[in-house]
């Protein structure tokens, strides 16, 4: 196979980015893995090379036949596939390391001209950077684990192991049925479009540098009985909403409902296969900044709406509908969500990226921590992401310079930390 069609969620990511065409905005996402010692870059290069023998997509190019063909990943012969770049920099101070990570996030990958994936070894950090539409965070985790597996077995698929699958199976349902399901999602999207969202980035028109802050925390164990509740995305979303509502009030923004897309991971749990593409559907949460005053009630309401969206098939319908974006994703977005023409997207980004559970060592090193840091658009201009690894909770706040200040980010982190009962570890 030398072509891989983009999935619906990939196309949404490409479409939103296109709204800012010409500014060279980054659509990178980072997966940062902290190890107990630096990895040998040659081992990564060798594993990537062996991986390309099995699957070309980390070295493919984004292509689209003129004029209205579907966007896809195109790969040539194996001999002509340039391996993704693996760079190596020695250990540096914390500040220098963070500056290098932000530079990595901002150095936009152009997937039409270079591989959509690259690797940076920064002292004890192993950083996988990819063009976000290539795969979702769990896809990136799985790819890294697969590369480490190849390294462990001398570059071969382990004896007796099933040959890995890199592409999701197509939806087996007939076109007519999928069309019917997709139409029900469209009706829901039209209802959402009735009230345009605003964000802290509203009014921003120029490119700003993307910044991020990662802090790791430990949960206080005595609160174990209600631990599950605070790990629920509904609770976390309500809490992030409360932190941002404070800023809304301070800036005198109106009490217009937040509109926040919540990604739903469609990958089977425990699936270690490095399947490419964003295997996601979306649930759209709406609540007013003023509703964050009663956090338990808001979390309960958001949770009830998510259950309702699952019960009536809305989330599944969203996944099916996105698959119809093959040819004209932007045109669809502009028609169904007219405010996107003004470059408004959502009020803020928020996602629970879940847990990275490394099995044993990676490239001979022990994993100490890991987190994802995705680039975001100037509007909404801020995103809050939860990650877990090795018993620690990571909070990653990403923002566009000029949209919020460092002090405001500190306040956002404090509100969330307090609400989750986390103790800072470093």
């Amino acid at each position, binding site marked *: 196979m030398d072509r891989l069609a983009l999935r619906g969620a990939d196309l949404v990511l490409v479409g939103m980015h296109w709204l800012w065409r010409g500014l060279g905005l980054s659509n990178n996402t980072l997966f940062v893995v902290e190890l107990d010692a630096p990895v040998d870059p040659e081992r990564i290069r060798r594993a990537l090379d062996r991986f390309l023998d099995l699957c070309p997509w980390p070295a493919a190019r984004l292509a689209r036949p003129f004029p209205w063909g579907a966007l896809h990943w195109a790969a040539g012969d194996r001999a002509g596939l340039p391996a993704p770049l693996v760079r190596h920099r020695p250990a540096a101070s914390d500040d220098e390391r963070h500056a290098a990570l932000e530079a990595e996030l901002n150095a936009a990958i152009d997937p039409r001209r270079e591989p959509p994936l690259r690797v940076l070894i920064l002292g004890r950090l192993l950083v996988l950077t990819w063009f976000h539409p290539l795969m979702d965070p769990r896809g990136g985790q799985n790819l890294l684990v697969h590369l480490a597996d190849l390294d462990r077995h001398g570059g071969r698929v382990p004896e007796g192991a099933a040959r890995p699958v890199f592409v999701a199976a197509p939806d087996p349902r007939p076109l007519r049925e999928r069309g019917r399901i997709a139409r029900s999602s469209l009706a829901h999207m039209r209802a959402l479009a009735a009230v345009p969202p605003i964000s802290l980035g509203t009014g921003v028109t120029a490119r700003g540098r993307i910044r991020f802050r990662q802090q790791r925390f430990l949960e206080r164990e005595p609160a*174990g*009985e*209600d631990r599950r509740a605070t790990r629920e995305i*509904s609770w976390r979303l309500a809490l992030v909403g409360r932190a941002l509502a404070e800023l809304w009030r301070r800036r005198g923004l109106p009490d217009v409902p937040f509109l926040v897309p919540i990604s739903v991971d469609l990958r*089977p749990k*425990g*699936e270690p296969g490095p399947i490419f593409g964003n295997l996601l559907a979306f649930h759209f949460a709406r609540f007013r900044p003023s509703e964050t005053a009663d956090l338990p009630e808001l979390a309960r309401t958001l949770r009830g709406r998510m259950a309702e969206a*699952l019960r009536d098939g809305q989330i599944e319908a969203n996944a099916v509908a996105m698959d119809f974006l093959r040819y004209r994703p932007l045109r669809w977005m502009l028609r169904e969500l007219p405010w996107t023409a003004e470059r408004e997207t959502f009020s803020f980004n928020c996602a*629970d990226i879940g847990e990275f559970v490394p099995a044993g060592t990676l490239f001979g090193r022990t994993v100490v921590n890991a987190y994802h840091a995705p680039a975001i658009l100037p509007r909404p201009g801020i995103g809050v992401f939860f990650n877990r690894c090795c018993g620690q909770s990571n909070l990653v706040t990403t923002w566009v310079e000029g949209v919020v200040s460092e002090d405001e980010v500190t306040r956002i982190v404090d509100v969330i930390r307090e609400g989750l009962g986390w103790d800072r570890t470093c």
Partner: protein
Amino acid sequence: MPKQSDSDRVAGALVAFINDNIMAHGHPIGPDDDLEGAGVDSMAFLKILLFVEREFGFWMPDEDLLRANIASARALAGYICRRGKPA
């Protein structure tokens, strides 16, 4: 011990649902496995609660979502059996 076997049957039904609808093939869970540790996230857990609603006829209230009730399929089965008992 009829109560025990009820709980086992419910746990078996939960495990079958989770393995068929949430877990990847080749990565099944058992009745005592920690659901969170197996990667069952918020949305996946809501799917389990919808299954409970469909099969056992009630929606689990938020105040009962305690770790002791939902840590594993067996813990959830125990809760379902207790809940099903006449007051």
